Each structure stands twice: as C-alpha cells, then as structure tokens.
C-alpha cells in the first residue's frame, strides 16, 4: 500500500489535525485555535482596510494635502508612541512650546484653538515616530525660535543664559570685597586713630596736615573711651 503525501506545504492547522490529534480535548483545542486564527485574520483585514480607507479619504479621494512635517524634517527617526506614554509625552512637549496667539503661554496651558491644533499636531507627530528634536525643528521652521519657551544656547540667546550667571558672580565679588573692606576698616578708621597713642603735646592740637591727628571732640569727652585709651596706653 502506497502512502500518497502531498508535497505542497500545508497550513499549520491541517498539519496539526493530521498528525497530532490524540483525543476529543485536542480536537476541541484545534477547533478553537482555528476559529481564533480566522477571527484574527478577519480583524486584521478589517483594520488594514480601515487604515487604507482613512489614508485614501485624507489624501487621495478629496485630493487634500496639508503640509507635512516630513517635508521639512525628513522621515521619522524616533519610536512611535501610543497610549498613556503618547499622552504624557505630548503634554511634556506641549509645555515647552509657546502658543503664538497667546501672551507667553505654552500650548499645553492655552485653551485657544490654535494651541489645541498645535498640540494635536505634536501628538500626531509623536504617534508617527518623529523624535523630539524633529518636532522642535518642525515648529521652529515655521515660527522660528519664538515658539520655544526655553531659548537655545546659541547666538544672541547665549546672553540670556550667561548674563544672569555673570550678574550673580559680579554680585558675589562685590559683596565679598565689601565684607573684606569692612573687616579692614577699624584699623584705618578715626576711632582706631583715636585709640593709638598720641603724644602729650600732640593731643588736642592740629598737626601739619590739619585735623587728621586730632581726636574727635566727642571722644575726648567720653570718659569710657578715655579709660579704654588709658588701658591701651598704660596697660593698667
């Protein structure tokens, strides 16, 4: 008895049905798997048809073609985002882009239609796999750096980043210089001059340069200062 074997490749479901059925349970399992794979194929086909129809509806049937980011920044270079990650990252990027019709608001915070449209476009670009850098570049292409809430570290914008640091540094230098000069001040002040030992003949008389060597009148009258001077002078 010869056994005829079909040389053509079989579908996996048939192969299993021929060679691996061992009982009723297996048969049920195979039937379930077969039904599932058929359902999956049908669902996939419907999905593909819908995607194709959507694309056709957008581009070909009406002939409508809106400017596309790919025209300006090339093919997507990131990973397409979906679900919660897409929502979260859309919000993050939208918080860094300025709404052009508002006063200093990010598109994430503005309820204007323009901001909503821009946010929608950010979401669409992220879902298509455009990287953050490409998305920024796309909006910059249209609006310039105005659209970025954080100016780039280049050109005149460098001043925006450098000047505050420079001003802070200058401020710190001024404060330290002032503190140092105040620390040195007692040695050169008239009070310390008064504490130095004036000669008996010199005290209370104008020197050659004028009043510099003369203690201030209130110091002469202050008994406390006089006592301190005595202590310093005579170490009594």
């Amino acid at each position, binding site marked *: 008895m010869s056994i005829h074997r079909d040389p053509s490749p079989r579908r996996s479901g048939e192969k299993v049905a021929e060679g691996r059925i061992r009982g009723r349970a297996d048969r049920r399992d195979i039937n379930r798997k077969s039904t599932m794979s058929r359902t999956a194929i049908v669902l996939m086909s419907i999905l593909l048809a819908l995607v194709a129809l959507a694309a056709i509806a957008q581009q070909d049937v*009406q*002939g*409508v*073609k*809106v*400017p596309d980011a790919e*025209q*300006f920044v090339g093919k997507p270079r990131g990973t397409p985002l979906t679900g919660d990650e897409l929502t979260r990252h859309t919000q993050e990027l939208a918080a860094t882009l300025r709404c*052009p*019709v508002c*006063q200093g608001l990010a598109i994430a915070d503005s309820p204007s*239609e*323009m901001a909503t*449209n*821009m946010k*929608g*476009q950010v979401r669409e670009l992220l879902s298509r796999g455009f990287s953050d850098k490409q998305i920024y570049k796309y*909006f*910059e*292409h*249209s*609006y*310039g750096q*105005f659209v970025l809430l954080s100016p780039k570290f280049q050109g005149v914008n460098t001043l925006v980043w450098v000047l505050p640091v420079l*001003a802070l540094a*200058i401020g710190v230098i*001024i404060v330290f*210089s*002032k503190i140092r*000069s105040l620390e040195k001040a007692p040695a050169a002040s008239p009070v310390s001059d008064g504490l130095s030992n004036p000669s008996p003949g010199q005290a209370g008389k104008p020197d050659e340069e004028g009043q510099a060597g003369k203690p201030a009148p209130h110091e002469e009258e202050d008994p406390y200062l006089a006592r301190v001077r005595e202590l310093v002078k005579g170490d009594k």
Partner: protein
Amino acid sequence: MNRTVLAIGIVIALALVVVLYFGLGKDPQHIDSPLVGRPAPDFALKAVGSDETIDLAQYRGKPVVLNFWATWCRPCWDEHPTLTATAQSAGNQVQFLGVVFQDDESKIVDFLRQRGWAYPTLVDEKGKTAIAYGVGGVPETFFLNKNGTIVAKFEGPMTPDIIEENLAKAMR
C-alpha cells in the same frame, strides 16, 4: 570701590534701558518669519463652496498672494475690498488665494457672497497649513514669487500700497 560699583550700576542700568526700549517698542505678537526666502510649504486644499481642490503647485510660474483670514476678524473685513479689487485688476498676472483661519465654511461663503468673491478661498482643516506657515493671527499675508519662494510676509490688513510694495518683490 564706590566708583567701580557706580560704574557697574550705570552699565547695567543702561543695558536695561536699551533692552526695554527695544522690547517695549515691539509688538509681542509679531513673529519674524523664518520662512521668508524659503520655498512655501506645499498644500492642496478644498476650495470653499465647491468640491474643487486647489493645489499651490499649480500656480508655479506666477506670483501668488496667500492671505490667511477669518470672518470674525474685523481687520480682515477692512482689507477685503482692497484684496478683491487688486485681484480683479491683476487678472492672470498674479494669483490671489485665501485660506480660512479657524472659521466655519458656511460663514465664509455668506461673507464672500455679500462682499465679493474674486479668488479661491481654501479650507484649512485643523489649521495644519496655518501652522506650517507660522501664522500667529489674522490677517497675515504671504507673497510668493513665480518659483514658489516666500519673498515677504505681512501681518495686518492690506492696503494698496502694501500690496504694491510686496508684489514688486514677488514679481522680480
């Protein structure tokens, strides 16, 4: 030391005065378009009041005046007679195109029927064309030369002088 501090203070104060002088004298809504000197973003949009699709590329070879506007924008009402009259007098020499900015098609149709309909006005779904052109308000008008390069952008209502001046750039 006091003189140094005074000098630094004066320099900082002068710098602030200069920055404020230029900053306060500038319209915060004004955006210097980086698109001037670059090719105009391509689009093909549905014309208001018909099923026809207008492709920007079909007008290569002649200057194009691209005006973003809306019926809720009062300055757009003011400039409409000027744009209509200039478009009619320019004939086939220059192509005028309007693009609807955040408005309903029905309102646009009513407006144009009442106030003159001299050139195609296009529907911009979800404002993608406006975003690609960096539009930050209306009216805004772009002047394209015959090669499709943007040679000028103007924010605000058109007057005959402004159109003439910018069209001269587009015709070169």
